[in-house]
């Protein structure tokens, strides 16, 4: 028999669900993921680090599931077979007078098995730790990643100083070669996590740490900040694009060049506007007058898959929308809205669109 108050509760729940649905019909400004093909699953391992961890996961899952099911089985058995009583029934005080060898044996055995199982899990964990530490680092690609509120700088430092270059929010790595990433943080604690490639590592101001991984399959792997860092922690993505070595070299060569000089009038005008407006206060474009480092380096921005650290797809419409109103797409972002005339905005978009 259902108490009448239940009807009231049901009505309240339906009301809440309705409110939810109504709220969700309102306009949204955030884009769906711009790279739906990106892989970002800890169990979808694409390199040795993630793969060792995924194997360990299987060991733990099997062991823990077995323990859980065993306890559940005992519980269900108890519920099924134990006789019933009520509060008036006299309690059984025989255990105060006599020992209970049966239960004692069972409990002792269960404890022994538990200890052995735990020990086995610790050993498995230690072996995985060692496997992770043994990644060969020969011929590694060296990248220095610095995390900021809410974007990433990546500086490639292989070779001499003239070979190094800086990009933002998207890194390319060669398939089959180890990557050593030095991690720094500019402001607060962040964490770099690319689930399909490796476990995460925190980037801590005042400290320098290292992450090592290797991608064994070509593809796009999505990474994300995994330590709460303020307003736009939710939209601080990093793309890792693994490519065959030849393609990677091509990319590197391209990144090492200065920005493509614009050829058409619109793009030329765009460059002029860029250099003379507030854009140049924060962004750098190698080969132009803009060389500030408070915001992502835009030298090869058109070669990237996304804008604003994985928030928007990199299309002219999205770029235009982003520049004219960053707060709409990523509220709280440090990029201010830049007042530009329609023509100036189009010109800048044309210019930036040519920076491959």
């Amino acid at each position, binding site marked *: 028999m259902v108490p009448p108050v239940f009807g009231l509760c049901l009505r309240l729940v339906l009301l809440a669900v309705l409110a939810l649905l109504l709220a969700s019909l309102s306009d949204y400004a955030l884009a769906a993921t711009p790279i739906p093909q990106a892989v970002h*699953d800890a169990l979808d391992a694409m390199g040795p680090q*993630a793969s060792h961890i995924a194997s360990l996961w299987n060991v733990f899952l099997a062991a823990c599931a077995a323990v859980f099911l065993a306890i*559940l089985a005992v519980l269900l058995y108890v519920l099924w077979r134990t006789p019933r009583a009520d509060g008036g029934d006299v309690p*059984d005080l025989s255990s105060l007078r006599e020992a209970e060898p049966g239960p004692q044996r069972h409990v002792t055995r269960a404890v022994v098995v538990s200890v052995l199982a735990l020990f086995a899990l610790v050993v498995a964990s230690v072996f995985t730790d060692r496997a992770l530490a043994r990644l060969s680092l020969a011929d590694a690609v060296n990248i220095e990643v610095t995390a900021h509120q809410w974007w990433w700088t990546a500086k490639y430092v292989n070779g001499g100083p003239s070979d190094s270059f800086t990009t933002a929010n998207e890194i390319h790595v060669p398939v089959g070669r180890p990557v050593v990433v030095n991690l720094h943080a500019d402001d*607060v604690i962040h964490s770099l996590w690319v689930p399909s490639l490796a476990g995460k*590592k925190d980037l*801590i101001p005042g*400290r320098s740490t290292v992450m090592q991984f290797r991608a064994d399959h070509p593809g796009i792997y999505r990474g994300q900040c995994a330590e709460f860092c303020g307003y736009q*922690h939710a939209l601080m993505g990093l793309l890792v694009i693994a490519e065959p070595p030849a393609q990677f070299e091509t990319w590197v060569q391209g990144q090492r060049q200065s920005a493509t000089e614009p050829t058409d009038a619109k793009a030329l005008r765009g460059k002029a506007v860029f250099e003379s407006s507030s854009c140049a206060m924060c962004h750098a474009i190698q080969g132009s007058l803009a060389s500030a480092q408070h915001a992502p380096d835009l030298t090869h921005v058109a070669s990237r898959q996304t804008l604003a650290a994985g928030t928007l797809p990199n299309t002219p419409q999205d770029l235009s929308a982003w520049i004219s109103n960053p707060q709409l797409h990523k509220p709280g972002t440090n990029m201010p809205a830049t007042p530009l005339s329609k023509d100036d905005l189009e010109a800048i978009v044309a210019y930036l669109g040519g920076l491959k």
Partner: protein
Amino acid sequence: MDRPLVEPPARGSDAPRLKDGPPPGSAEARALDETWADPPGFFGWFCPVNHKTIAKRFIVTTLAFFAAGGLLAAVMRAQLSRPENNLVGPDMYNQLFTMHGTTMMFLFAVPVMQTVATYMLPLMLGTRNVAFPRMNAYAYWIFLFGGLMLYIAFFFNTGPDAGWFAYVPLSGPQFAPGKRVDFWAQMITFTEMSALVEAIVIITTIFKFRAPGMTLNRLPLFAWSMLVTSFMVLFAMPAVMLASTALIMDRLIGTHFYNPAEGGDALLWQHLFWFFGHPEVYLIFIPGLGFLSAIIPTFARRPIFGYTAMVLSLIATAFLSFGLWVHHMFATNLPELGKGFFTAVSMLIAIPSAIQIYCWLATLWTGRLNLKTPLLFVLAFFFILVLGGMTGLMLASVPLDLQVHDTYFVVAHLHYVLIGGAVFPLFGAFYYWFPKFSGRMMSEGLGRWSFWLMFIGFNLAFFPMHLLGLHGMPRRVYTYQAGMGWDNLNLASTIGAYTLALGIFLSLVNAIRSARSGEPAPADPWGGGTLEWATASPPATCNFHRVPVVYGRDPVWEPPPPGAPAYVSGLAADSREQLVTTVLDALPDHRISYPTPSPWPFLSAVATTILFVGSIFTPWAIVWGSVIVAVPLVGWFWPTRREAAEHMALEKQP
């Protein structure tokens, strides 16, 4: 006027003359009821020192905070029910999840356990009040004011927004401008002070105020769990007080504890916070274990199996819990060898918990089950907590943790262990002890509806989060993009959360209706064995008209042998007097006169609030605030001649 220094004993009608000993219904019993009554009237409302009165207020307040924290979560889950939702923006969402975590951890989980203890322990131990009754009252007021301060700040858009564990530098002066984090840090000072005071009250009550014959070997397991918890509080809470005070100092007066540019370290915060933070979750979990040990014997109709192992397991868990904190920091650049040590200890702590689980299962297996609502909530523990414990083992492993740390996997784990290990047992305890503190039975039917909605809702809400974490969803995100593969799991989770909320709401309805019109409850409706069931429902203001003498671990099941003394007599009936016993064997040691109702705890709490809130804005508040606090504290301590005369009439030197 030449007054004697040592107050002469009161004479004539002012002197206490009646002694307890005669049974309920006698003139002495009626005198006891009057002596221990709460002061009436509006001003009297601020003065009671009766542990039951304080605890009822305290429980209602913590449950109100629980509801508030739940409402915050309901908004969060609404926001996350679909991708790219804009019910709330990032700033509000950051305040929501910070307030949710902060409310649940600081304003609900630990205080509710302490206050159920301050209600039940004197009854279970066979005494008339807690030790230090006015400190107990002060602890409530201080807690209330701290919680109110935080919520008032939140309502003025100054709620903290850096997460419930407020990592620096995000919570430091440079990246968290304004007073948001300062209100959070000072709320910690309020609530930790309350918890520390309550810990001292609980330890002293358990050690010194037991019924004669209740040796430590006969102490109820719930009392053991609260004793162990309270010791942990003494050593864990200071860490967060120090950490939060250093944070306030960095923000207010320019110290550099956490500023790497001047020799400070961001990880110092994490070490100090988690040195507190890990034991904190055991402060919540261990009382839950105590509830299980109170409920299971009653509903299995037999004493607990393995009492000694259970006690040792509680103590082992408490010690080990201080050695785990680095497992919250596995993703930082601490030395790998050190992290390995913490993996081992984090796994090791599973063993005493496992021992307890096996002993409870053995008790249930060899008993006869009374499947009422309290037992249902307890049985849910074996499903939910054990599952949470399994994911805890996974998190203990460094490599696995590096994948799932700071993702929804952790959110799933923490809710499984806290809700399974503490909230479900708490609800069980609530159904179990409701007849005792209200004198009425709760509805079994509504109880079952509530239980099943909670159980199903909880699992639907939180199980999908394990998968979300493995599929790449980090914690503390105000939204997520469509097409990541997270949409359906989030929607399911939201539906589960609302189902859980409905289940909880039904228990609230049950409690309110039953308090008004439930079936009247006898002294011992469940046939329980511990002392709280040996007195009326609800208990008299003095708890026991005759303090019992105890001969076993379940005194109601093990009455005194023929001819042996069954109770204590000779305590004053017209003055607040109680018996102090020895620590190990509970032998009667001496009598003590108890404080009468007083406004000083309330006034001291108001003064303390002025000091603490002032020091959010200026360091000089410490100076003038201390003067303000000193006044009611002196009033609290200073004896009146009447009191002293009454005590001197009962005085006898050792």
